[in-house]
Structures are given as C-alpha cells and as structure tokens.
C-alpha cells in the first residue's frame, strides 16, 4: 500500500486539539459558564478548521492510499508504534466525527441537560471527540485499541450523569457490553500479533501477513474481533444495550452515539477484521450476513412495537446497521462501498432524528408517541424537518439514506467468490422486505406525531425551531440532501480505498 507522508502533523493536531480544550476547561472556574461554553465552542470550531484543512489537502486522485501518514516510536518494547494515516474510508468518518461534535456543542450552548455542570459535560464531550477521531486514523492495533476504549468512560458518564430515569442501569449495561467485547478483541489482537511472527502491530503489516495464518487459527482470531466489533455496531444478538443506552442518554449523547460510536464497530470490520484475516472472513461472512438480516427484520419489528419515539429511533439503528453489515458481509467492493456510504448516511440521518427527539421532549415533556400529535400545526418547521429525516431514514431516493440501503441490498445478489449465492439471494429478499417495514414504522411514526389534531394544550414551552437548533441542524440537513442528490461526492472517495482494502478478495 502506498503511503503519502505530506503534512504528517495534521492528523495529530486534529485529533489532540480537543485535549488542549480540555486542559483549558479544567482551569476555567466552574461558575463562569459563559467562558466554559466559549472555550468548548472555539475548540470544536478549531478542530473542524483543521479537518477542513485536511480535506483540502487530501489527494483525491490517490484516495486509496494512506495519506498524512506519521509514524514514530511509542511502545518499542512491544513493537507498537504511533502510526496514523487516513484514506478514503477513514476521511468521511473522521470529518463526520469533528462536524458532529461541533454541532452537538452548538446545540448544547442552549440545552445543557439536567443536572447542569457544563464544565464536566464539555470536558467529556471533547475527550470523546479525541477518542473517536483517533480510532479512525489509527494504523496500529494497540493505538486503535487505546482510542477505541477512550470513548467508553466519557460516554458512560454522559449517560449515567445526564441521562433519564433509568440512566444508571443503562450506562452500566452499555459499559459492560462494550468492555466484554473489547477484552476479547484485545486477546484476538495479541493472537494475530504472535501468529504473524510477533513483528509488528501495524495494520498494513498485518494485512500483508495475516493471510498466511492457518485458516483454523484465523477463524478463532476473527471470532475475538467479531465479538468486539459486533457489540459496538451493534449486531443482533448483541444489540440489547443499544435501546437502553439511547433512550436514557441525553440528546447530545444519543446523537454522538448514533452518529459516530456505532461506526467504530463497522469501521473495525472494514479496516481490521476482514483485510487482515481474509480466509476467516469468507468463513464468517454468511453468518455475519445472516445476523445482519435478522437484525434488519428484528429491528423493524422492534420499531413497530415501540411506544416511545426515542426508543423507536434506537431500534431503527439496529435495522440500519443491519444493512451496513449485510453490505460488508458480501465482501465485494460494491457491498463495502454501500456499507461505508451507509455509515455516513446513518450518522447524518439518525443523528438528526435524535436531535429532533431531544427538541420534541423539551417542548412536549414526553416522547410517548400516543401523547404527541399535530406537530405540523403546532410547531410546523420542526414537523417538516422530522418529515424530511423520516423520509431519508426509510431510504427515499434523492436523500442520503437511499445510497446506503439500496446498493447494500443489491450487492447481496452477487457476493464475492467462495460465498454461497443462494444464501445471499435469500438474504437479499429478506432485506428488501425490511425496507418495506422501515417505510411502515417511519411513516406510522410520522403520522402519529405530526399529523392529526394536537393533543397537547399546554402551550407554555411550545416554540418552533430556534436559532441554536437551526445552526446545529442545517449542516446535517444540507448534507443529507447533497449526498442524496450527488452520491458520487462520497463514492468517488470511498471506492479507491475499498478496492485497496479488498485486494485479498480480488476486488
């Protein structure tokens, strides 16, 4: 794989800039809320500026190569290095994490959830940002592991301190599930390290040499990684932490969780598990595909049964991530392209839906669907935005969601060599049915909440979308439409990197 080392400081700056903000926040007095908000805002703006600089200097003609590569000693004794880089798969996710954090900070300027304490809230959010960005650029398994774990504690506290009624249960469940996965993942990382001759933890090195491991061992190592990543995605049957975590998390936590954290899992499959263990990937793929379509149908049925709007959106994540995993499980560049597009699209759309849910809760003091209704007459702009996002989420052509979902289904028609075509075509049919259910639950949600006559006659807190919300939401809405109309903006970056990643499977 080709490495481009120009501007090799830029990723480190982008990743660790939020930590600088954390240090400044730590010395800012707790009582001075205005200063705290300013520091958090400036830090996240500066991070996005570094992100834009990265984008402008990205060599789009070589999107398949690692760019901005930096490599230096970190833990020489265990042959782990500080090795970072970015290609066409990482770039969209890396930038998405920066932008979403900025938007969430903007939203939080006006919406600090109870029990307050913006200082701690922003500190945790910025630590989260470093962990998320770092995961997408790490090219060394140990570095990846450290960043992957770095997000755990901040999210645990974000849910546990600022969350809803059942927050303590939900946060602990989130933590234990993810930690269980990552403990086994670490054992798998060590196993692949020793099986490739204990030479290096660098991902490119393991991609070169991982294929030489005996198939039987590969299958076991893949199992460890599978549990680590599948819990994070989350795939059926490891998904049960997700509805609880989402329902109880504060709006900001839900948005970050949906938009970025879930992608750490799918990204792990695309970047690490599949390219380093190609033989095991072929063995595992039908099972992953099977769990993915179960997730699609199960998530959809789960949605139909929900009475709480936020919980419904959470279950829809299970279904959407099912499409992403189905695309990945085909092991074709077509399918993985769709999957990476699906990750970005799901991040934008579901992030947006959780923002809306937060604002509905603030206005109506409930998220119970039966008590909502008539949003279009009471808060028309919010109602229309919900409509747009529901349509995007159900995969309406012309909006971003379509380009993750439809190609993923289509890719199952023709999976990679060595995979059973009949099985995958069955998956395709089931997944296609899933889109019908998706339309059903989302339209039904929209019908019950936005249409009809208002059931809420307490107009005290009812106000339409305010400035903070517009500023936080417009970029997401614009991106949903833009990527829907011109999907090639993304596909052209993703595709070369996917081709490179799947070299072991003949493209």
């Amino acid at each position, binding site marked *: 794989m080709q490495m481009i080392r120009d501007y090799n400081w830029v990723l480190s700056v982008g990743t660790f800039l939020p930590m600088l903000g954390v240090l400044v926040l730590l010395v800012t007095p707790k009582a001075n809320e205005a200063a705290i908000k300013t520091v958090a805002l400036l830090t996240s703006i500066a991070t996005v500026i570094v992100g834009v600089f990265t984008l402008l200097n990205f060599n789009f003609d070589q999107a398949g190569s690692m760019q901005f590569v930096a490599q230096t000693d970190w833990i020489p004794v*265990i042959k782990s290095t500080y090795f970072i880089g970015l290609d066409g798969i990482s770039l969209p996710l890396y930038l998405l994490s920066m932008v979403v954090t900025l938007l969430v900070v903007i939203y939080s300027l006006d919406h600090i959830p109870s029990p307050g304490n913006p200082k701690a809230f922003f500190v945790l959010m910025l630590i989260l940002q470093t962990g998320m960005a770092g995961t997408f650029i790490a090219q060394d398994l140990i570095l990846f592991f450290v960043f992957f774990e770095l997000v755990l504690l901040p999210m645990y506290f974000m849910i546990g301190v600022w969350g809803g009624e059942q927050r303590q249960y939900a946060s602990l469940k989130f933590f234990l599930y993810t930690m269980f996965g990552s403990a086994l993942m670490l054992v798998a990382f060590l196993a692949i390290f020793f099986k490739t001759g204990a030479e290096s933890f660098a991902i490119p090195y393991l991609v070169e040499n991982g294929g030489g491991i005996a198939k039987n061992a590969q299958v076991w190592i893949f199992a460890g990684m599978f549990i680590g990543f599948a819990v994070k995605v989350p795939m059926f049957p490891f998904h049960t932490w997700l509805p609880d975590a989402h329902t109880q998390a504060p709006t900001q936590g839900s948005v970050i969780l949906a938009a970025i954290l879930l992608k750490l899992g799918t990204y792990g499959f695309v970047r690490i598990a599949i390219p380093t263990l190609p033989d095991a990937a072929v063995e595992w793929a039908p099972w992953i595909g099977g769990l993915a379509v179960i997730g699609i149908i199960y998530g959809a049925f789960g949605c139909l049964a929900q009475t709480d709007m936020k919980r419904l959106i959470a279950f829809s994540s299970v279904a959407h991530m099912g499409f992403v995993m189905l695309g990945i499980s085909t092991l074709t560049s077509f399918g993985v392209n769709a999957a990476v597009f699906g990750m970005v699209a799901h991040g934008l759309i579901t992030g947006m839906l959780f923002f809306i849910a937060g604002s509905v809760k603030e206005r109506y003091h409930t998220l119970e669907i039966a008590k909502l209704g008539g949003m279009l007459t009471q808060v028309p702009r919010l109602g229309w935005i919900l409509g747009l996002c529901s349509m995007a989420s159900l995969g309406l052509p012309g909006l971003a969601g379509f380009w993750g979902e439809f190609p993923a289904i289509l890719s199952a028609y023709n999976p990679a060599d060595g995979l059973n075509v009949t099985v995958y075509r069955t998956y395709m049919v089931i997944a296609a049915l899933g889109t019908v259910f998706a339309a059903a639950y989302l339209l039904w949600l929209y019908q019950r909440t936005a249409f009809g006559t208002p059931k809420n006659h307490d107009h005290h807190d009812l106000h339409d979308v305010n400035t903070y919300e517009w500023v936080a939401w417009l970029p997401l809405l614009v991106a949903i439409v833009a990527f829907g109309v011109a999907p090639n903006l993304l596909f052209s970056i993703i595709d070369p990197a996917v081709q490179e990643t799947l070299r072991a499977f003949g493209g």
Partner: protein
Amino acid sequence: MTLLASSAAAWTAPVIDYHAIAPEIVLAVGLTVVLLVDLFTSERNKWLLSALTGFSLLGAALPVLTLALHEDSVRSLFDGRYVVDEFSLVMKGLFLLAGYVIVLLSSSHVEEGDYWRGEYWFLLLTSLLGMVMMASSRDLVSVFVALEFLSIPAYMLAAWRKRDPKSNEAGVKYFLLGVFASAVMLYGMSLLYGVANSTLLVDISKSIDLNGDFAAVQALAVVFVVVGFAFKVSAVPFHTWAPDTYEGAPTPVTAFLSVASKAAGFIALVVLLLTAFPEGRDVWQPFIWVLSALTMTIGNVFALRQSNLIRMIAYSSVSQGGFVLMPLAVAGGAAGEAALRAVVVYLVVYAATNLGMFGVILAVSRKTRSGDIASMGGLFSYAPALGVLLTIFLASLAGIPPLGGWIGKFAAFQALLTEATPWAYGLAVIGAVNSVIAFGYYGNVMREVWMRPVPHGDNSAIVTPSSLRIALGITALATLVFGILPGVVLHFGDMADLVGAFGG
C-alpha cells in the same frame, strides 16, 4: 573443641561490597534513629518522626539510583546468596518509593489518632527493610529471613489500633495464617535442602528436575513452597485472611499490605520459580494456572457482593493478584522473560494506582468517617478533584486505556500468549472475562461518585492535608504517564534482568 577450632581457622571474613548494601544500611540506621528520637522527644515534636522516616526512605533510594547508574550492573555478595542485579534494583526502588507514598498517606492519619506514633514508623521501616532484602535474596535462608523480617512488623501494624477489636482481629488473623504459611513453606524448604544439599537457589535448580528416586519429594517440596507464598499473595483458596485483615487494619496499613507486602510476596515467588525451579515447571505451571484462574474469578465474584469499600478493595486486590499470577502459568520455558517483565510491570503500575486510591479513600473518610461504598455518594458534586482522581484510579484498576492499569493487563496477556497453547488461550479468555466482571464493582464506586446523591445531604468541603495532596499528585501522575507512555514502565520491566534465571 578441635572441630570448632579448625572451622574457625577456615573461616575468612567475606568481602562486603558496602555500596551494594548501602540501601539496607541507610534503612537500618534510619529505623534506629527513629526509635531513639521517639524516646527523647515530647508529644509536640513527634511530627519529626514521620519526617525522619520519609528522609530515611529517600536516603535509601539514593544508593539504589547510583547502583543502577553504575556500570557494574550485577553485584554478588556472600557467594551469590545476596545478589544486587537490575531486577532487585527496580524492586527496591519500587518498595522505597511506595514506602515514601505510604508515609505521606499515613502522617496525618497517625498524628490525628491517639496511638503510639514512634512504633508505627519504626515498624513500617523495619518491614520495608525486609522487603528491600527480599529483592536481593537468592538463598533459602536469606529468603526466609527477609520474609519474616517483612511479615512480623506487618502483623503488629495490622493490630496497631489495639483498643479496636476489629484491628485486633485483623492482626491475629494475619499473624496466625501468616505463621501457618511460613511453617508450610519452611517444611518445603527443608525438603528442598534435603534433596539438593544446598540452600543456594542456583544449586537447587540443578537438583530439581523431577527425575530419579526423589521425584515425588521434589514435587512435594515445590508445591509446599508455592503454597506458602500463595498465602502471602492471598491467592485463592489461601486468601481468607485478606478481607478481615484489610478491613480491620488502619487504612494506611491496608494500603501498605495490599501494595508493598503483596509485591514482596510476588517477587519472592518469581525468584524461586524462575531461579530455583525452572526444571520443575511441570509441577508448578498447572498449579499456578489453577491458582490464577481461581484467584481472578473468586476474588471478583466476592468483590461484587461487598458493601464495605475496604472489603471490596481487599477482594479486588485478591483478584488483581490472579492477573499477576497469569503469566507465571506459562513461565519457565521460553516465556519466562516475558512473564518476569509482566510481573514487574504489573506490580509497578498496580502500586501507583492502588496507593492513589487509598489516598482518596483516606481523604474522604476524614470527613465521612465511614467505610461504606455509599459514603462516596456524590463525591464529584462537592469535591470534584477527589472525584476525578478516584475515577482515574478505579478506571486504571479496571484496565481501561489510557490509564496505567491497561498496560499491566496488556503485558500479562502478552506474556501469556507467547506460549500459543490452548491452556494459555484458555487462561487469557478467563482473564478477559474477569476484567469485565471487575468493572462491575469498580463501576459501582464510580456510580456512587458521579451519579448518586450525597449521603445526608452533607455538602461540606473536604480538607485534604498537604501530605495527602502530594501523595495523590505523585500517584495520579504516575498512573497517567504509565498509561499514555507505557514505554516508561515497560522499560523498567525490560531492564529487570534476573540473574540466575534463564540459564544466565
């Protein structure tokens, strides 16, 4: 008479390398001075004692440093019975620094209590001297003497609050089980001497090969010695003294026992396994495997059920011991060096983290006067700095990057998996599952700190004495640096060459 005369004539005074034993000399002088000063100072000036103790420890650390920087990295005294090598220097440094932090943790506690201060510092220094000696002992006799040297003052320290029945219980339980363990070990050692006709560990390694007429006796001797140390490091099923002793002893003493005393037990075990019994590994490897799996699991399961913070820590420290044992289950063969490194790294990181946690507990209990986990409720809301520090230490103990603990766990897993056997992988999976269970109780304390209300709504501030603050600063810094730049601590592990092991 003639026999005595002839042996007297044959005896020549050994050449003593005073530089090599300078740390021990400084400590011996220090503890004598503390004892004497205690006799002649009035109550008002007793603060001098803690200062003297601290200076003795730092003073003893100086020659450790000069020895480490000196080009003769290995100094062997008394025909190899007392060896100052890099391994022993790293461990001596650890004991002295941990001892210094314990002095900082203890000083306000000791001065505010109405018990005898001079004796406290004297016993602490004596026990630390035993540990420093243990790091260099390479002979059954010197190992045993060092062990008793470090244990007996510790029994008395555990019972230091003599008008408190719980403290008495702590001391008696610790004493009885400790003496029992010593007896079992001594029996094993006598068998070893019978088989090998030498007390020198390097000589014993030549005789213990599990072959010949005495194979069964050899195996029995190895098992007895390992069981003796299993008591010291509170490995399951020899752990039953730990919770009661930890709960009853004064909190700084608990910190001392769970960090320094335990580390001393582990290094003695490692030295014996790697230098005296490398060829006996067919006996002790499966034994350690079972001990490690049991220790991790049982320690964790019991820790989950505790409502008293110190008891929870006691079980958690039992469970952490299982992780230290983990790499030893494959040590002896090619994985020996990795296992040694993992043990050293784990002990160093664990010392920093655990002492820090005790520091926070001491600070908070000055206000709450309670040992319940619930007494930590809402700590973050009224003492954010202590709350964050406690979170850092707990997360480090749980092994969450980027805090120190993860590199200890990582090194243990790494050493274990250098032997790619199903047994190694099996233990690794047990370890992985246990590290998740452990979060159950560490997370429970975090939940109190961050998410629960303050008990009785008592929001009054906590006054932290400056000595405690320094201790917290040192330990927190170490925990963070070890986690973010693990090369620092792995370097210690890497240079800790144990002379006499691995055919060296």
